[in-house]
């Protein structure tokens, strides 16, 4: 829908880690920047950039929005959980084996996490997924159980808990160094999104990739509340419409990109349309029933208790109220 003429609104938005990611090129650039300018007849102008271009690591995005440096910012929730612990609970390892489950949990949790975020002057408008986080290894494996004893590059607390429980050894290495770490065997395996792995040319240095989504790297678009409330109501509902469209597009992309990343990694040219086809195709390791069972068991026994310990008993109660009915797993027994 359009927007009646009025005073110009200039918006600063910092979204997505890298400017090459499809979440940026296929959603943020066309919807958030171009379409808003077009539909508002130039009234709303969005100055868009990525974390990399702004020299940001991703952990400080809540503070960026709170300080009014950006009006809108998007980042993955686990990287923000140092500042706002409850955000980790939306995307625990093993919580949602399918993207539909992840979406239902995200929708249910949105108003709940906002109660915490609003204390800091920020509000989440949309929670969206990156392609499923899967395990890539430089040696063959046929299931999760075989990762025991291997060095796995992880990020975020719940993944560390997850791989520790599997008997693997979690190693923390910065994302740009993971390629050479895999190449030289500093680590045996690493976890990242299907799309990010292909984009970082991991198929060149790995041989096998699992198709079991361990988590979804859920991310969210936040706004600065003071700025949001000050907006002309017409502009606000105009932007709300934009966020609704972004929400739909990002979930669509998340599902498509998950499969696409795997197809690109395994050299299936017909399915590889979003990312670039790997020059050295690798093998896809299909998830087994045993894997799914292990995922669930570790969630219950290690990941969930770890989350409650970090975040506090209140987070456990929130989890049982909001997520347990969807996921079928309860915290604290």
């Amino acid at each position: 829908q359009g927007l009646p003429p009025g005073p110009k609104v200039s918006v600063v938005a910092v979204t997505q880690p890298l400017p090459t990611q499809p979440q940026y090129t296929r959603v943020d650039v066309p919807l958030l920047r171009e379409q808003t300018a077009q539909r508002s007849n130039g009234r709303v102008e969005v100055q868009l950039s990525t974390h990399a271009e702004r020299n940001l690591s991703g952990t400080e995005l809540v503070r960026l929005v709170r300080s009014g440096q950006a009006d809108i910012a998007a980042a993955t929730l686990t990287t923000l959980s140092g500042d706002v612990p409850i955000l980790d609970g939306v995307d625990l390892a093993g919580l949602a084996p399918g993207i539909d489950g992840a979406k239902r949990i995200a929708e249910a949790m949105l108003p709940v996490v906002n109660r915490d975020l609003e204390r800091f002057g920020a509000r989440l408008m949309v929670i969206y997924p990156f392609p499923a986080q899967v395990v890539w290894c430089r040696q063959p494996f046929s299931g999760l159980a075989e990762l025991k004893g291997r060095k796995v590059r992880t990020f975020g607390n719940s993944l560390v808990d997850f791989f520790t429980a599997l008997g693997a050894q979690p190693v923390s290495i910065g994302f740009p160094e993971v390629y050479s770490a895999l190449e030289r065997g500093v680590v045996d395996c690493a976890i990242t999104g299907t799309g990010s792995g292909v984009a970082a040319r991991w198929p060149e240095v790995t041989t096998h990739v699992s198709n079991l989504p361990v988590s979804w790297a859920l991310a969210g678009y936040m706004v600065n509340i003071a700025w949001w409330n000050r907006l002309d109501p017409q502009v606000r509902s105009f932007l709300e419409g934009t966020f609704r469209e972004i929400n739909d597009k990002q979930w669509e992309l998340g599902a498509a990109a998950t499969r696409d990343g795997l197809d690109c990694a395994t050299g299936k040219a017909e399915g590889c349309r979003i990312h670039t086809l790997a020059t050295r195709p690798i093998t896809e390791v299909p998830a087994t029933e045993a894997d799914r069972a292990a995922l669930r068991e570790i969630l219950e026994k290690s990941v969930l208790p770890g989350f409650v310990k970090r975040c506090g008993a209140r987070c456990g109660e929130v989890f049982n109220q909001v997520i347990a009915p969807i996921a079928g797993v309860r915290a604290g027994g």
Partner: protein
Amino acid sequence: MIAVVFLLLLLAAAVFAAVTGGQTVPVWEILALTGVFLLFFGAGVYIAAVLGLLGILIGLTFSDRPWWAFAGQTLWGPSSNFVLVAVPLFLLMGEILLRAGLSDRLYRALNVWLNRLPGGLLHTNIASCALFSAISGSSVATAATMGSVALPYFRDSAYNQRMVLGSLAAGGALGNLIPPGITFIIYGLITETSVGALYIAALLPSILVTGLFILVILAHGLTHRMDRPPPLPLGMKLRALLGLVPTLLLMLLVLGSIYAGFATPTEAAALGAVGAAVFAAAEGKLTFRLLHASAEATARNTALLGLIIFGAYLLNYLLTTINVPQALAGFIGGMPLPPWAIMACILALYLALGTFMEGFSMIITTVPVVFPIVTALGYDPIWFGVMVTMLVEIAQISPPDGTVMYVLQGMRPKPGPITDVFVGVTPFLAAYLLAVVLMMIWPEIALWLPGVMG
């Protein structure tokens, strides 16, 4: 100086924006800022303060957002960055090696083998610097360590003092180019390229530069004939090789651990520092006093770089906030010139900056602005990283301002004007520039090896 360059670039970008977008340009504000900073430099203001205050003024002039509310995070991010931990570790390793006298043994061992070539001991200067560079990540540390060891050998010799100083300065300027190197680590940090790949890419170029240096000395040796020292028996020469063992083992530890998959480049720096201390202990020189003095020097040199990082990151943050890099990249990318001509301009800019600027501040303030342009032009980030490192090294030995040259001037046993160093280093500077031109014509010199190994 760099601040002035930045402001002029800012002005160019603003004029460009005005021409294309029809906005008003704050020309006077920019000119006034430039004037203020010319004055600052004239007054000898601290570099970090110049960069930081320029950032603050730009923020106050051009940004309508409360950027100061985010400044703490802007300073905290780089100061607590794991990748930069390698910097004090390499400095620490250099300090320990210097104080433990391991570099002296290296020099004596090489000397026995090289002193009968035309050019004699001058070859030892280059070779020992090159070997030392393969364990140390800093050019200043290389020049200081090998210079303090080598200069006494030339005290009453017939060698041309200028060539002696020149060859040591040139050898020092291999410190960052031959892996490992601090410049690569910082470049990798800013541009998110793999430091391991940068190291591999730098191997052939560093052999090329070392080879050109040897040619310079051979040419000098053939035109300035000197009596050769008597040949030594082979047994003695072989025994002398033992002096190389600590250096080679450290090299194996630092580079080997990276390529064997034990450690990341940052971690390898820590292994090197601990390894250096172990060798010092084996020599019976690992005292509390040695560690205490090394700790103080490391703390001082890291703080000096850290303060510049504060200023540079604040400035970078504000420049990005007002979209300067993006505008500049768009502006240069849109110029009606072929990519190689634009690249030549960028390299020329680095050379010009390098004559009066210190390499480290040069890389940290310019790469964030220049890098997007380079990638937009279609150049390889790894290749550009090697090129920038070479230009930073050239900056260290290009008169009138170059840390490596100052260090050597300060260590001369017999006093003399600094112009001796300037004249002596010139043929080596020319050789280094030739290597840059060759790299421009054949980028494969840097890219072939990573391609084969990756």
